[in-house]
């Protein structure tokens, strides 16, 4: 691609806090969404004369709707604990990529228009008028945040920068500055059913091809069922699993697990996407509309269980929000939720992560594995941010960290963790999450991957790690693209179920 050239940061021995270089990333500007996309989502496509009023009105609306937003904007004491916690700051050295500075882009405007002191004495309280210059800064720096929430782990007040970024982007949408990448994808989900825009016949053809491949490879007729009414399990997985390498290897892994366990399962051509990009902007209705396709498919197919494939944002939305978004999950006591819960099997978690499913099946002896099949690999695990900091798995606290690791250790003999401060709830984002996995932000993506690349480099040197497993489609796509810039081979990147696929015993 004819992308702008930029320097690739050098991997050092440790993750270092860089010296400030003011404004070095101010040029980063993701492509804006064009009129047809904005029209479809109900947003303007350019700034009107009244953009400022619209922005302030929208901010007021959001402050009324989300108390968390008002609290986050009010309580920051500028202690600085977050400043060196963001991978984009560590990779770019631009001080506006410090979480507190990213928040302040909105906090200054909030003070000016929504606090008495800011209305009367703006200069004394760091309040600032909303100008076109400020708005452009929002567009630049709210798309240099992957909403990974690492900074919130270290904030003594628990301020969640991701929520501020989400609101910032939604206000930008509302004045006509939407992002092409995310908004185009949302229109495809709503029109076709997945982020790729993969229509049913193409999906069917792709799955049939995969069945042929598996049979040629193993001699076992493992199926990839689509739209099977009355199946027990509906698998909802990111559409990248159908399309890309190495994603497809995990899809093959899920199919082998269901086959070996004798579970009657299906995928849906109508709900052929797990990822929900509605999470990235604070637009509840858009997120709900995307999630409702899964409810509709579950009701239509009459399934008893809903299982989610390897997708980070999907699992956060599924685990944390589906119960009220589309009625899948515990706690919904309204007629809407009750209708679906009557159909779903209460003896299983709803929804359930594919890692939980496979882990349980191995533990209970229902499927057999041979970990020596992965003896050519020394494996580490990259915790994906939305799984790590926005969800859980299994029955124990921290299950989102232990279940995938126990699963990996069951199917592979050689495993080493990366440094403590880069895993579990302190994990570093891959650098491509939250709507940033687009070529027009390649510089941001490459630089944002520096902390993870540093941690990986250390286990490569110390333990000869040659495979980094993960459970997120964005992480897989991001790392296969950016790690080669740091000298790693893209084949080091793959899914947990890619390992399962190699180790599982069929027939």
């Amino acid at each position, binding site marked *: *691609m004819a992308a702008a050239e930029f320097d690739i940061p050098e991997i050092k021995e440790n993750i270092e806090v860089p010296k400030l270089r003011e404004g070095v990333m101010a040029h980063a500007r993701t*492509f804006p969404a064009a009129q047809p996309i904005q029209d479809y989502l109900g947003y303007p496509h350019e700034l009107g004369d009244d953009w400022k009023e619209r922005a302030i009105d929208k901010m007021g609306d959001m402050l009324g709707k989300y108390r968390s937003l008002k609290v986050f904007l009010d309580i920051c004491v500028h202690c600085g604990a977050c400043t060196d916690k963001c991978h984009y700051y560590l990779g770019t050295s631009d001080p506006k990529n410090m979480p507190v500075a990213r928040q302040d882009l909105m906090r200054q405007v909030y003070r000016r228009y929504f606090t008495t002191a800011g209305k009367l004495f703006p200069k004394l309280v760091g309040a600032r008028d909303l100008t076109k210059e400020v708005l452009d800064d929002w567009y630049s720096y709210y798309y240099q945040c992957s909403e990974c929430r690492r900074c919130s782990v270290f904030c003594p007040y628990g301020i969640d920068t991701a929520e501020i970024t989400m609101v910032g982007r939604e206000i930008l949408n509302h004045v006509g500055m939407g992002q092409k*990448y995310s908004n185009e994808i949302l229109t495809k989900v709503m029109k076709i059913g997945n982020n*790729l825009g993969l229509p049913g016949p193409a999906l069917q*053809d792709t799955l049939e091809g995969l069945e042929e491949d598996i049979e040629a490879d193993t001699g076992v007729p493992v199926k990839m069922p689509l739209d099977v009414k009355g199946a027990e399990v509906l698998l909802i997985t990111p559409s*990248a699993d159908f399309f890309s390498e190495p994603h*497809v290897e995990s899809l093959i892994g899920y199919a082998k697990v269901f086959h070996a366990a004798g579970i009657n399962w299906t995928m849906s051509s109508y709900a052929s996407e797990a990822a929900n990009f509605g999470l990235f902007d604070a637009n509840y209705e858009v997120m709900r509309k995307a999630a409702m396709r899964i409810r509709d498919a579950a009701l239509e197919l009459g399934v008893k269980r809903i299982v989610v494939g390897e997708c980070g944002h999907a699992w956060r939305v599924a685990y944390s929000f589906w119960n009220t978004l589309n009625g899948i999950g515990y706690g919904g006591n309204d007629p809407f939720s009750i209708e679906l819960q009557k159909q779903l099997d209460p003896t299983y978690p709803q929804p359930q992560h594919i890692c939980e499913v496979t882990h349980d099946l191995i533990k209970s002896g229902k499927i057999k594995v041979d970990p020596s099949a992965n003896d050519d690999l020394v494996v580490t695990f990259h915790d994906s941010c939305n799984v790590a900091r926005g969800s859980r798995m299994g029955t124990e606290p921290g299950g989102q960290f232990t279940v995938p690791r126990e699963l990996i250790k069951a199917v592979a003999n050689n495993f080493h963790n990366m440094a403590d401060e880069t895993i579990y709830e302190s994990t570093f984002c891959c650098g491509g999450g939250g709507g940033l*996995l687009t070529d027009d932000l390649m510089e941001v993506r490459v630089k944002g991957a520096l902390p993870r690349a540093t941690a990986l480099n250390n286990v490569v040197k110390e333990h000869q790690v040659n495979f980094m497993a993960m459970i997120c*489609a964005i992480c897989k796509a991001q790392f296969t693209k950016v790690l080669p810039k740091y000298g790693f081979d893209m084949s080091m990147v793959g899914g947990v179920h890619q390992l399962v696929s190699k180790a599982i015993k069929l027939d």
Partner: protein
Amino acid sequence: MPMVNIAGKEVEVDEEGYLVDLSQWNEDIAKYMAVEEKVDLTDSHWEVVNFLREYYAEYQIAPAVRVLTKAIGKKLGPEKGNNKYLYELFPYGPAKQACKIAGLPKPTGCI
């Protein structure tokens, strides 16, 4: 959207240089896109480009990488039916770079 003149024909491309109106595609446009992408088009590249166009005509989407590698393996021999070979032809990634040269829209999503 910007307009470019390719072999005497005005065509519209998007911010990333992808053709906006697929029906305008011709071999001159493919050659122009290849130069932009710093790809020297050989017969092997054309096999990929032609397959992408055939597949798109049938399914209105670019083929999945597996579908593509398998088809190329059948046409050019099993040793070429893999992702590595496709990356040798299209270093930025077969899905995006080959699609651009073939005049297909850019694949989107977590890819």
